[in-house]
């Protein structure tokens, strides 16, 4: 598990881009204080999902408005077609810890790990 940030680093209803891991991840805090982590880069093109719009457990990509289910990573509608990778989050004592997925990330064409 990696220590990622503190609870107060992520305002309610917002996402935070974390670049200390590669590829970067986004941590979201919903309006009812649930935390989720997914790969930050949209699976369609190079957009940061942390910049997106959070509603319930869904984040809408800030560029072309595909929505990803933060619980499963599934995408609802084009233009994205592939799910975004999800990571396990544990919140203890106001700190956010993440276990990175061991699956291969679904990065968009032209974006590579470590780039």
């Amino acid at each position: 598990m990696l220590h990622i940030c503190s609870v107060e680093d992520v305002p309610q209803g917002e996402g935070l881009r974390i670049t200390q891991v590669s590829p970067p991840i986004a941590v979201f805090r919903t309006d009812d204080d649930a935390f989720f982590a997914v790969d930050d880069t949209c699976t369609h093109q190079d957009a940061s999902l942390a910049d997106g719009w959070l509603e319930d457990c869904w984040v809408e990509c800030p560029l072309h408005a595909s929505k990803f289910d933060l619980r499963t990573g599934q995408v609802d509608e084009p233009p994205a077609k592939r799910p975004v990778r999800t990571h396990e989050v544990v919140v203890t004592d106001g700190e956010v810890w993440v276990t990175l997925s061991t699956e291969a990330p679904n990065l968009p064409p032209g974006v590579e790990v470590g780039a």
Partner: protein
Amino acid sequence: MGARIRTVIIIGASLAGHSSARALRRSGFDGDIVVVGDELKRPYDRPPLSKDFLAGRTTEADLALEGDEEDLRVEWVLGTRAVALDPGTTTVTLSDGRWITGDAVIVATGSSARRLPTSLSGVHTLRTIDDAVALRDDMKPGARLCVIGAGFVGAEIASTARGLGMDVTVVEAADTPLAGPLGALLGNAVAGLHARHGVPLHCGTPVERLLGTERVTGVELADGRQLPADVVVAGIGAVPAVGWLADTGLDVTRGLLCNQVGATAAANVFGVGDCSAWFDPARGHHHRVEHWTDSRDRPRITVDALLNGYDPAAPATLGAPYFWSDQYGVRLQFAGRRVGDETVTFEAGSVDDADLLAVYWRHGKPVAVLGMDQPKQFGRWRRGLSHDLHGAAA
């Protein structure tokens, strides 16, 4: 209405047609869906055709709109045009002489690129994958490209070509590029990207004629100037593909005229996407939107009306239209409705930056927003836009 719909015919196998089929299945519609498309391809995404696909950075497979495991149980009739519609019987005649009858018809035939009347080779327009492949084959580093029209698609082609090392010039008949969608101030700000990236932009002089005998060699402007070119692209807009509806009695003068849920004057005939001009309650008139996201999202409204009926008198609002454009590495995003006399404020950046957030205000309310490389702030403003263009409510 609902129970009687057993077969829905969708004409146009692209974004709006595919979204309609998906909305039908998501609404639990279990009947037959027939999708007729005159291109041979399954639905694909057009925006990359002037961007990453043209640059060779994405493949045709990347463009597919259908997910890998998606099965909408659609009968695809591809490579076939719809040539006539009988609204009374919701019967569509196909180019191969067949006809099909459904309980409802959704027209999703989009737009076709306006073309220059010429038989010279080396002159392109861009609407389909085939167009993009043909253009890309002509885009050689060092070759001279003249783009006619500084609209969004033209500007994107110029930007992509520049990135590929072409020598690019853009010509625009209007004095101010993009003044229609963005207004003069911000139209100029966006069009300023060309000059910053070494692409001359000539405004205010229309093209007189193309030069060359078999292959194009240049463009002559109305003031006599000649611009040499090895390749010419006309980015001069698109017209709604509604000619095939001419004998239906439906109003197709500015696109297929529809109400605020996409219903036409004929029962069980609907229009979605670029081909349609919906009544926009916020504007108080019909308006044809040619944007990707609206073509994706509005079919949901139409399908709900088709399956469940609708109350024509019920108050309705349509979401703020939204489009994006990628030019010279800058992400442009615009949402909302401009009438023309808005006041513009800058919430971030300024016209001198390729990084700004500009808000258009009417009667003290934000009605539109333009972002350049400001996706997060843009998304927040976009959601807060007012639909009240006329200062109705205080």
